């Protein structure tokens, strides 16, 4: 297989491949490694992707070889190679002590060069993985202080805050992401989700704060749907939130969005979701590309509400 063919194989796979997909990619290792090294950017991109796939499937010998070749080309002190080496070390570590060793290694590298961003990100991920969540968050805030226009860092920080139920902070971080990427509809949907979860976390359901949060959530979801037609996650949220707003527990006095509007939005979302479910089940052309797990979740929601 040629280089372009192999690259295309990698490109067709989603960002979070299933185990079987990973295995299929990992099995391409011999054909990639047997290609003559042409020193083109494409080839090194391919090597990098393959390294991740082989590590996922436990093909450590191929990973070692790929890493060796990358290091030969770019040098061991290249920031990206250091991070890849770190991933390899993390994957091959078999016990806690070895992971701690890797962490110590990262900390030392960062002491020499605090701006080594790939390694800094690896260190944060490893800290979080080792359940040192508050340390991971403070390391990530330092990194963001260093590089405040990195949307990825902000989104990750939001996720960390969300995991420990610090919703106002998570919302703030995602709003920062939107300042950098104002059209990111998935971030809008995520904001809707966090507002919704934050509303549910308040004990006194039916209070003014809950209504405010639910309405904020609805607005974020609606913006997501506005930015992306047929956005399953957005419509799912619209349906869920409008359902909660129409709940009898919610006092109408606090509402700023009129009930008829909420009703209308609910029925629009139901129609859209029904379309998506039936369309993707029949494999219609306009409904190709929906994730089957997401469609299943929608089906479950529709069945639960009718």
């Amino acid at each position, binding site marked *: 297989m040629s280089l372009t063919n192999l690259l295309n194989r990698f490109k067709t796979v989603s960002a979070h491949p299933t185990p079987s997909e990973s295995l299929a990619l990992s099995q391409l290792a011999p054909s990639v490694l047997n290609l003559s090294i042409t020193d083109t950017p494409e080839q090194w991109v391919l090597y990098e992707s393959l390294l991740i796939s082989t590590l996922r499937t436990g093909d450590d010998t191929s990973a070692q070889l790929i890493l060796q070749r990358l290091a030969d080309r770019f040098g061991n002190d290249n920031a990206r190679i250091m991070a890849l080496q770190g991933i390899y070390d993390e994957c091959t570590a078999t016990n806690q002590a070895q992971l701690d060793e890797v962490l110590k290694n990262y900390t030392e590298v960062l002491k020499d060069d605090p701006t080594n961003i790939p390694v800094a990100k690896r260190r944060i991920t490893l800290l979080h993985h080792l359940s040192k969540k508050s340390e991971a*968050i403070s390391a990530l805030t330092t990194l963001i202080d260093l590089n405040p226009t990195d949307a990825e860092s902000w989104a990750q920080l939001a996720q960390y805050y*969300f995991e420990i139920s610090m919703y106002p902070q998570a919302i703030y971080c995602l709003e920062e992401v939107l300042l950098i990427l104002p059209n990111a509809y998935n971030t809008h949907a995520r904001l809707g*989700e966090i507002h919704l*979860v934050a509303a549910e*976390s308040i004990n006194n359901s039916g209070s003014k704060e809950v209504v405010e949060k639910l309405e904020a959530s609805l607005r974020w979801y609606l913006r997501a749907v506005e930015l992306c037609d047929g956005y399953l996650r957005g419509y799912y949220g619209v349906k869920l939130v409008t359902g909660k707003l129409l709940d009898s527990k919610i006092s109408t006095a606090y509402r700023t969005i009129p009930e008829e509007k909420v009703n209308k939005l609910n029925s629009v979302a139901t129609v859209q979701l029904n379309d998506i479910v039936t369309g993707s089940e029949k494999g219609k052309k306009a409904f190709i590309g929906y994730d089957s797990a997401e469609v299943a979740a929608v089906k479950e929601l529709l069945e639960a509400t009718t």
Partner: protein
Amino acid sequence: MALSQPAWVIDLKTSPSSRPKAPSNVADPPGYSTSGSSKKSQKQITPPTQAETDDLKIKKAWEVALAPAKSLPMNMIMMYMSGNTLQIFSIMMTAMLFMNPLRALSSVGNTFSKFDGEATHGRLLTVKLAYIGLQILTIVIGIWKVNAMGLLPTTRSDWLAWEHAPVPLETSISNFR
């Protein structure tokens, strides 16, 4: 095949009670303020009274009226520096010095119409007078310049056409033959 649910669906379905409590010792993100970004501090803005807007209008009118005063010194220096010979630039600059004030004088009412109102009409009169005075001052500079160029008919020789040849009281005729 059992499909694993997407992460966001799991997030939405997790019941609030099973979530961890928020720890207190975690650093806030850079730029985050605990007072809450959603509750904006709303300052009560009282609309200005009629008298205040009138005062403001007069103040603005004075600014417009005194604007020509700022360009006076510059005009004077320019006129002084440019030579007194007759050539295209000095003629053009001098002509401008007359044209602009005259044009301004012809549209005084227009200039101040946006400040005009029932309450401000009386007070606007002094402002207008100051404006007119300054425009006239600009013209005076122009006259001075024209004079310096020798274009004003201020000497006797400028009126030669009306001069009469003096009639001699006596004539003397030489008598040497």
